[in-house]
């Protein structure tokens, strides 16, 4: 659909359902609309009360799959990251809630336009805030450089912006001080022994009954036939060293401020 002019005054999708052609009826006359061809539809329902209503609808309609906390679970994806695979904008999320996502278990929901916007407002409110305001992000960036964090985080370790979006400030703090406390399965360490005794180590990228795909410690992408392995395992070990005792309280606040600044999105 082309970007069309969207009214700012009292907009309502009057249909309970968003149709493929997004048939809209506007509460104000078309002639009165501002004419900005690139203006994206903004959510007219984002007061705290709207988010509360959205939370209630989310709980009854979405939480079975996306989890009561929005972090995913029964087939539904994690909606707390502020970035979405299919919903590239609030506008797109509005359409998806109404129409579903083809080829996935995500159905369309017969909510009113207002209810749909409220759910969208609630989902966007789940994203981690841009920053807590505590700490000096500029100095944090320097500390990241000084401590050579990018040697790994620009390579095999999680992208810092992605990590920051997926974690709260307290989770980020824990990842820096106690990296082994919680390691996402995609970063677990893989170790396999080939026939002949050679040991391979790296990160498991994918696996099926017959093969495993790894990035080895030298950064090479490899597919290993399980028939060539005498043993293998994945363990929740992190390659990240602990920075406890290496960063003082202010350093840590500054690094966290820098990480939070990478999240993008809401300011």
């Amino acid at each position, binding site marked *: 659909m082309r970007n069309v002019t969207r009214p700012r005054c009292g907009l309502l999708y009057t249909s309970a359902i968003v149709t493929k052609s997004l048939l809209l009826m506007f509460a104000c006359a078309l002639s009165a609309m501002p004419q900005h061809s690139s203006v994206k539809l903004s959510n007219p329902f984002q007061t705290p009360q709207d988010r509360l209503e959205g939370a209630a609808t989310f709980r009854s309609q979405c939480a079975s799959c996306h989890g009561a906390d929005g972090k*995913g679970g029964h087939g539904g994806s994690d909606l707390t990251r502020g970035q979405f695979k299919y919903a590239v904008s609030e506008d797109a999320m509005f359409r998806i809630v109404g129409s579903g996502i083809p080829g996935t278990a995500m*159905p369309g929901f017969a909510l009113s336009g207002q209810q749909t916007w409220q759910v969208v407002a609630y989902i966007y409110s789940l994203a981690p805030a841009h920053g807590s305001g505590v700490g000096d992000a500029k100095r944090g960036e320097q500390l990241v450089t000084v401590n050579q964090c990018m040697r790994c985080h620009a390579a095999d370790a999680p992208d810092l912006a992605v990590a920051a979006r997926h974690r709260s400030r307290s989770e980020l703090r824990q990842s820096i001080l106690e990296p082994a406390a919680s390691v996402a399965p995609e970063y677990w360490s893989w170790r396999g022994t080939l026939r002949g005794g050679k040991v391979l180590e790296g990160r498991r990228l*994918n696996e099926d009954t017959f093969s495993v795909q790894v990035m080895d410690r030298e950064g090479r992408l490899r597919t290993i036939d399980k028939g060539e392995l005498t043993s293998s395992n994945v363990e929740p070990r992190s390659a990240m060293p602990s920075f406890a005792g290496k960063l003082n309280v202010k350093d840590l606040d500054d690094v966290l401020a820098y990480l939070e600044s990478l999240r993008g999105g809401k300011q």
Partner: protein
Amino acid sequence: MALCGAAAAQSGADWTTYHGSHASWHHSTLNQITPGNAKDLELKWVWQAQSLEKFETTPLVVNGVMYLTEPPNTIVALDPTTGREYWTYQHALPDVTYPCCGKVNRGVAIADGMLYMGTLDMKLIALSATTGQKRWETVVGEFRKGYALTHAPLIVNNLVIVGTAGGELGIRGFIAAYDAKTGKEAWRFKTIPEPGEPGNETWGGDSWKHGGGSIWLTGSYDPSLNLTYWGIGNPGPDWNPTVRPGDNLYSDSVVALDAATGKLKWHFQFTPHDEWDWDAVQTPVLVDGDWKGKSRKLMLWANRNGFYYVLDRATGEFLHGVPFVKQTWAERLDAKGRPVKSPGRGPSAKGTLTFPGVQGGTNWFAPSYSPVTKYFYLSAWDDYSSLYFSWDQPYEQGKWYAGGGVKSDVPSTRRERLNRRDPASGYGAIRALRWDTGEKVWEYKMTDVSESGLLTTASNVLFSGNREGHFFALNAADGSLLWRIYLGGQGAASPITYSVDGKQYVSVANGHSMFTFALRDSAR
């Protein structure tokens, strides 16, 4: 095991019904492909869907034509030897329909030159199998209230039988039969009894009104008893059982209905007062055999709740039941097959960890029975659990009505790279069970779980696929791998086999395409 009517229970040159026969064995008499030559299978053709919806169709092949459904509701007629299309019929759907879990369709039924398809907007449509022209269309129910038709119809004598989906949308389920020539309704069986009907007392208060009991998989039929058998879905709301005190008949049951009248002959409830969403939506597999020295008409059933059952299909009598995967919800089954529940395994506000997980020990994907090995084959999800959550939820028409939620490490349907979960969180396996004891004879273990159905042949070849994207052939006698190919998509359908001009083919839907294989010409 003495088998009566075995010929009619197996598929031959054509694959004429969703389950391969009315006895639902997913077994074929074809024997050109063998454990010895399966390594010489090669791809013959691919038909690619334009739709990106989940492709769950099981095709039919009748009189040299293959009929498949492309989601949501398009029928395609094509040449089964080349994949070239003859015609397509596209049913125009309203912009919004109400399937719980994807705009899917699992296939068509065919009889006397007519094709039948149920649609997401609750229509049953009859077409000419030659021209694809519509002959009649009947409204089966109100789709705006959360009803939908997703399974392939079952044809019994002169009737076309369908049932409604919608167990997560507060529907009240039913099975209905229509005259195959005219589309006129012949009978209707309500899966949730209303006041005054037996069974309504198993629903506290008004909970029966939105009690679910959906139908989303084709049933079976025994002509000798003139009974048709259907597995019924979960009670609603799924995970808030406190609002529906009682056993909640006929949810999670198999019902035996008189095929001519739709009258209930018997029922057996696998999971009374279900708290986990364990629909009894599995294939009723009908075999005749010796049970403790007496020849009986039996039904074999591997249920989503993790137990394997043997029932007498004339009377519904429970004969045997045993777990086939790790389960923690029941201490045992009593003498009548009723589970003695373990305390504290139902959903809770903070979440309760219970085995099996929400998709169950197995699910709708077809099992197979082979009269050659006398094994019952199934695709199992083992060491698999979910956290089950419960909360209050009022009913609203056409909206999600599940009263809770679930968290599982293993995604219910989504295919993803397999590095995002602990390998200990569950695995898939093709298993052969002794039909009478449910004892495991062999298993073929897979890294990921599978939603692919099974097919066995008279030459002891078992075909299946998995979520990893593989399609493969096993030796049905011992489970050894004979051949495999990586198709790259999710397998969420059952393979079929058929023969045209003396050549045996195997077809399966994977990803968004239909793949067909046969032996290399030089290998036959």
